[in-house]
């Protein structure tokens, strides 16, 4: 291994943003630049496609998609049944298909069952409805502990479940990617599907959060 990584583990934006303002590139920034220039030069990748991929996953695909699905399931029982029976087909009604979402499964929270999703081996996650996973989802603490101490992990997210609530942890694979259908909070009967979609959080669809009608933003 000849990587000369600079081990940045902080989440702050790098003030010496690699490649800008003539600052010397180092570590992964330098290697990625080298690899990109080689692949483009060899005609193996198209620079325009690279920019389109980045734009798609940075600005277009994200948890707002999943929130729309959840809000529809809360307001349309027939859709909810389809969603639980054949998730990928129901998602396709929204056009949420494709890469890293080929086979999705929705697991439903109930007053006595709380579902939580992890990928212990890496980072499998339903991209079409949640976008790219956050750093904590891909981190060693979450991947290691979600399966042996889910209640402890949930506490770190500020979620305290009653003792009589069963926690079910789903370990994702490349073949099966899970999305949690969170409980619809009380006091939201008068809200429209669009308004409901606004209060559904990303974490509630991973299962590390719950949708709180009172703190709805």
């Amino acid at each position, binding site marked *: 291994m000849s990587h000369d990584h600079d081990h940045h583990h902080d989440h702050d934006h790098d003030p010496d943003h690699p490649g800008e303002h*003539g600052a010397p590139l180092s570590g992964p920034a330098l290697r990625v630049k080298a*690899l990109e220039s080689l692949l483009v030069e060899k005609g193996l990748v198209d620079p325009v496609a690279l920019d389109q*991929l980045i734009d798609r996953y940075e600005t277009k695909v994200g948890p707002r998609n999943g929130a729309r699905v959840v809000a529809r399931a809360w307001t349309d029982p027939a859709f909810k049944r389809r969603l639980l029976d054949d998730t990928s087909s129901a998602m396709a009604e929204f056009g949420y298909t494709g890469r890293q979402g080929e086979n999705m499964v929705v697991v439903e929270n109930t007053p006595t069952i709380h579902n939580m999703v992890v990928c*212990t081996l890496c*980072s499998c996650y339903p991209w079409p409805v949640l976008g*790219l996973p956050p750093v904590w989802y891909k981190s060693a603490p979450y991947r290691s502990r979600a399966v042996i101490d889910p209640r402890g992990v949930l506490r770190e997210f500020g979620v305290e479940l009653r003792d009589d609530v069963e926690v079910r942890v789903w370990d994702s694979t490349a073949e099966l990617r899970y999305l949690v259908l969170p409980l619809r909070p009380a006091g939201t009967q008068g809200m429209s599907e669009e308004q409901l979609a606004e209060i559904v959080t990303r974490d509630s669809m991973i299962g590390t959060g719950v949708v709180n009608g009172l703190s709805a933003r």
Partner: protein
Amino acid sequence: MNGAHDLGGMHGFGPVDPEPDEPVFHHDWERRVFALNLASGFLGQWNIDMSRYAREQMPAAEYLATTYYEHWLFGLEHLLVKKGLVKPEEIEARVAELRRQRVGRPAAGS
């Protein structure tokens, strides 16, 4: 198959540390290596399971000490070399070349 990547049930990694209002990418190179992985995947030379397996070839101690997109960079290099699409010495030569260019440039402006 176990290994440093097989983290389920391991002790000692400390608390989960969610970042409020986290950006999709934290550095520009993360954007680029993400897109390079996807675009290279379009070549049809490997599938998603091979991609993950390639990342798991990183030495265990290094895997645990590096970030997620550093794993992606390692895996991509591994696959490109294995498939004969890029030679390791080409990568090293380009890295050295870019390093020289950068060092030779003025420190600000550009």
